[in-house]
């Protein structure tokens, strides 16, 4: 495409089928403890 660069190859929809295993980290256990940041976590299956 001449006018667009897309930064990611995956879409959220692709995660519907395989997702939901629940093995990922709980968000507040990392470095926040006073806010909620889920989107910066990595999927456990892709670790």
């Amino acid at each position: 495409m001449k006018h667009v660069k897309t930064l990611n190859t995956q879409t959220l929809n692709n995660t519907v089928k395989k997702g939901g295993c629940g093995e990922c980290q709980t968000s507040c256990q990392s470095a926040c403890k006073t806010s909620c940041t889920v989107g910066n976590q990595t999927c456990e299956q892709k670790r």
Partner: protein
Amino acid sequence: MIHQYKNNGYNIVLDVYSGSVHVMDDICYEVTAVLNEQNEEHTEESLSGPGVTALLEKKLGSTYKKEELMEALSDITELVREGKLFTKDAFENMIEVVKERKTVVKALCLHIAHDCNLACKYCFAEEGEYHGRRALMSFEVGKKALDFLIANSGNRRNLEVDFFGGEPLMNWQVVKDLVAYGREQEKLHDKHFRFTVTTNGVLLNDEIQEFINQEMDNVVLSLDGRKEVNDRMRPFRNGKGSYDLIVPKFQRLADSRKQEKYYIRGTFTRQNLDFAEDILHFADLGFKQMSIEPVVGEESDPYAIRKEDLPAIMEEYDRLAKIMIEREKCGKGFNFFHFMIDLDGGPCVAKRLSGCGSGTEYLAVTPWGDLYPCHQFVGREEFLMGNVDDGIVRPRIAEDFRGCSVYSKESCKKCFAKFYCSGGCMANSYNFHGTIHDTYEPGCEMERKRVECAIMIKAALLYDKAE
């Protein structure tokens, strides 16, 4: 739903329901805006309609030639065909499934010590006491907590336990004993404990460091940044600052972990709205993994973030993002927790819809074994869920937390960042609105800015590589 913004010279378009992120040239960016104004859910068919070309010529014909507009429209149509632009919400109907899901407990925040050797002015734990009394968790209570976690974790293999406080190093023998007990139990139950500890570093020594490195998956080191900033908010009880004692210990610990699996974590207040300087100070001290968060406080607190501080905070995040790109390019990069974003390997939709997990998957345990939805609710009797002896005795609280999501909160519905924060912190909502089913708007504004900056950094580094 799409979100368009310009940052640091990049035209960025986020397609909210596919999670796709596009960097566009000026013409394509403007064409996208015109199309979005016309119809937020354009399809391949609607884009090929006769009205579209006429609309684009009418709105943008004085700036761009018709062929150029058609070329941009062709790229946009391709994105729509691939499900990466103007994507419809396909997740709202999943929310009932998420609400009804059976959850298991997978993480505990163990309040190993409701006591502290510092007297930080902004501490939500009130110098470790959490609206209660000073106390240390006994091994017996901790053991029951680990047993409770194993028994309530279903098929979940990875279990997280954070040793929190107050200051956990004030009850270190119990921490060591509980880790040993956990290691013994994980073999018997085919589980894997990921232990973490959050410390102010005052009691950190070589022996503790060695144990942390052997057993702790992650360690959070509390420091606010520059000496004067840290010492103003994080003094000892006698008023003396803590910076000089702590910094060398943290530097040693971070190096001994090869600058991985730790965070140096600070809090910024309205007294250091130039907090990027504190992040850079961390970097200058040699730290590579860092986090600085806005303080949580009552509006009457002199240090609390006020609405009028937000423009300065937004500018500071922008400034930090630009500096981080420069540092990365010259090989001096570092990781800022709130600008981390994994556009390809990030959390699945189910995780994004279910939020932080407090009250369901994540619970806090007090020194005497009471269970609360998370560490920030400890001491608020209306949120007391049960205890390690009897388990959850007030399941209605868990139900309430389980039902809380981006689709249950009115203010999340129109927000582009909802799949990144997953509805925000329920404790923040409760503190400001008396309900967990709302949002803390200044927190939301900051989160939106952080998401924008995180995406811009990705774009800048990708373009740099391409060049």
